[in-house]
């Protein structure tokens, strides 16, 4: 019943089709950017950039270069920590049919730092004017009409995949087995906890600091509130020592 994305970074060419298609569909304005020495632009997710392709280059021990692409977006966690951290009724909801985690206009009343801090992937952003907290909404309007999310529709490479959870998990596992033949470090990121499952061919840290959740994806409400003045991530790191 719940929908799931499978994002195969071994097929991604970082064309930014998904990044731009999302903005185009939602009519989000461009943000001012500068060339700061990278193709990653804007440098981070913003309230007008809900999907961002991240670039990271490395030089391996043998001198070979690797260039990893990570088309970042909200994971639509099965048990979303941001939803657990919410204190405003109806601000953060989860669609029963699709599993999409949705931020409504009521998020303007939330404490942004708490919501952002609760997310292990550092996804939520705030519109400075409306104070609404925003992120990917799984193109729920398109799903209602039987259409694919815009990022998935725009991807020609087969990097972005979307469908029923069982089908996507099956595809993810098949691809993992295939990729592992040449890339033994390949792994799926938090496949049991999220509805957006990434396949990477190397250490996730080489893709993005928050590619994979470090600690448990869910805490009790009491534990969350105990760290109310510290971002969740720091709390987890402290817990892990």
């Amino acid at each position: 019943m719940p929908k799931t994305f499978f994002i195969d970074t071994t097929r991604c060419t970082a064309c930014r089709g998904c990044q731009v298609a999302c903005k185009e569909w939602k009519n989000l304005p461009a943000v001012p950017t500068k060339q700061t020495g990278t193709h990653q632009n804007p440098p981070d997710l913003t309230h007008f950039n809900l999907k961002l392709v991240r670039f990271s280059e490395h030089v391996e021990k043998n001198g070979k270069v690797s260039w990893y692409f990570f088309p970042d977006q909200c994971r639509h966690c099965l048990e979303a920590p941001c939803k657990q951290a919410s204190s405003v009724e109806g601000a953060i909801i989860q669609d029963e049919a699709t599993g999409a985690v949705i931020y409504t206009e009521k998020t303007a009343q939330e404490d942004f730092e708490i919501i952002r801090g609760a997310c292990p992937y550092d996804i939520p952003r705030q519109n400075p004017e409306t104070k609404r907290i925003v992120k990917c909404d799984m193109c729920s309007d398109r799903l209602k009409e039987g259409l694919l999310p815009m990022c998935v529709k725009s991807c020609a490479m087969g990097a972005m995949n979307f469908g029923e959870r069982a089908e996507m998990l099956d595809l993810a596992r098949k691809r993992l087995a295939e990729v592992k033949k040449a890339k033994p470090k390949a792994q799926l990121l938090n496949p049991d906890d999220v509805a957006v499952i990434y396949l990477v061919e190397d250490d996730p840290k080489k893709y993005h600091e928050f590619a994979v959740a470090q600690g448990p994806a869910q805490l009790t409400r009491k534990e969350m509130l105990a760290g109310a003045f510290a971002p969740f991530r720091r709390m987890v790191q402290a817990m892990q020592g």
Partner: protein
Amino acid sequence: MTNHWTDLKHSDCVFLIGSNAAENHPISFKWILRARDKGATIIHMDPRFTRTSARADIHAYLRSGSDIAVFGGLISYILENKLFFKEYVVNYTNAALVVNKDYKFTDGLFSGFDDTSKKYDKKSWTFDLDENGVPVRDTTLKNPRCVINLLRQHYSRYTLDKVSQITGTPKEDLLKVYKAYAATGKPDKSGTMLYAMGQTQHTVGVQNIRAMSMIQLLLGNVGVAGGGINALRGESNVQGSTDHALLFHILPAYNPVPRASHDSLAVYNEKNTPKSADPKSVNWWQNRPKYMASLLKAMFPAPEPAVSFNYLPKLDEGQNASWLKLFDEMGKGKFKGFFAWGMNPACSGANSNKTRSAMTSLDWMVNVNIFENETGSFWKGPGMDPAKVKTEVFFLPCAVSIEKEGSVSNSGRLMQWRYAGPKPLGETKPDGDIIAELAIKVKALYAREGGKFAEPILASDPEGWTTNHVYDPHKVAKIINGYFLKDVKIGDTEYKAGTLVPSFAMLQADGSTSSGNWIYCGSYTEKGNMTARRDKTQTPMQAAIDLYPNWAWAWPVNRRIIYNRASVDPQGKPYAPQKAVIAWDAEKKAWVGDVVDGGGGPGEKHPFIMTSEGFGRLFGPGLVDGPFPEYYEPLECPVGKHPFSKQLHNPTALQFKEEYKAVCDPKFPFVCSTYRVTEHWQTGHMTRHSSWLLEAEPQMFCEMSPELAKLRGIQNGEKVILESARGSLWAMAIVTPRLKPFKVMGTTVHQVGIPWHFGWQFPENGAGGDAANLLTPSVGDPNTGIPETKAFMVNVRKA
């Protein structure tokens, strides 16, 4: 392309060189990744590590401009290790032909070079003929003057050491590439070579392509599924534009433009129609008189072709009117007016300062475009004083592609019809409407007032392109297809005057047929608009190679993989049965699969029907700079010599003597190349106006290695200045290990790269930067004139 886009899926080895397809032809990677799913190997050779390299199995660096060394080394490797597909090479290429004993190659020059004119007399680049006038063939390949032996001899200099020395590619990487690619020489394996401007934009550009074609012929990769020699065209319809001859030297469908000495159609036909005495050679261009007569009837409906031939503009003997020459002449005041139609020469042409300055000599310019741009606004650009510019510019705003109905011909020769989407905004018009209105008005003016040589204008028929006084793309598509102008019986079938010709096989030389472009004959027939078809049905044999023969229409005659007769043995049996292109059905006595190349049963005809001999050309006498590709440095280069000969540069390259070129000039010590990104397109004229794209790639940048950055004290993200002998520009530095210094002839050679997507006009505050072509030289390939914008010399320093 000899093949087509979906065919990439069926390759065993995809070799990208001179292409950054993942970035610039992203949809190609849809098919290439599916080939990888089936076990294919992806090879990428490039001066940089790009988004294509990130998806490749094998990546190897090479210095910009050193490609022929790589290809020569691969040819040598294939021959020495006997990895060529022998049966294919003997039967289908000109390997066995015997070359004229006067042909010689000495220290970088071929026989027939004239040092004064800097041109070759090609009279020794011929084949020995027997008493019947048929080329002598030694299928034992023992004759020392057999093409294959001359080939072996020519590339014996291209050892791994020497190739590595000049390219800067480590030997082990060369071997990795060679081994992987040469494995496609097996009869049932195929390799595809994908290229773009990285191969063509050099003073040896056409020879680069020749070298790849030769490799493909040696490996038996031409005419087969997943093979071929595949140009990835840079615009959605540039294939269409070259087919319809938007180039100075050809008429529609690749007929040579007449020269002054062709004072009649008969003389033109005599000089331009190849002959063959070999009954097995189809020699397709023997039909040229039919195509010329039909073209003339399409352009000038009333007069006989013999009369209207003299209405065609003619070039002087030896005249080169290619792009670089054109702007050079413009700068000398040779043009009153200039139509800059759907192009932005102020940014796209090499040597922007020269181009922009040239335009100040014009009395008028008509600029047809969708936005204001650096070309139409040249007179108020950087360094210009509008008060001193006399040019009157007429800006005609036009519709964008999705607002127009008509066809687009893609890299795979596929002509696809498109309906119009939204209505054009305001008073913008489709180009066809503008052209038709203009032509009709000009014709009316000539009719009323007369004028110099009015006959061609008055004999043209722009009204015939319209319906209710508006341009009608269907009408034009039909004119291009062609009509019977008289009732005629061909074989058992009667054809009525005024009906559409079903195939170019029926075009006539006597003026009884018309066709605006013979290769498109068959695209719009009495059965309808073939190019509008979206039918996915196909036979299982066709489905196995994703042929989709009923989806739209490809030239010629809807053949999807050309030279496909080479995909079967002389008995008509496919070499690769699991991905057969054609096969001989002995019962039906017919070919099945794709449309076969040339008539006749198995073994009856040589497969390469467009050459007069009928064989794929390993020895290629058709180019002006040599029958074998030979290594030369780019005209601006970082070394004073190379290992292959004493001849540093292509002696026939297009250049302007008075213009300085940097050779080992310490003022310009670094190699520079220009390229593109996914997010922008061409001069960036359209994409800079798209805010989401500009957000992703906002400014001119320069990619450089950490080693070069250290040398110049440059930090990542800081502003730098690039300078060449022609101009300078600023860029933001991207310091990245994806670029590496090269070890060339014992010295360290640094290379940088810049995109050519920016121009001063927009963003209006100049924040984007200006054209990469401010740096590039006015030098070009001697066959085509294409500028060498992929390898030239610059300096880079902190701003």
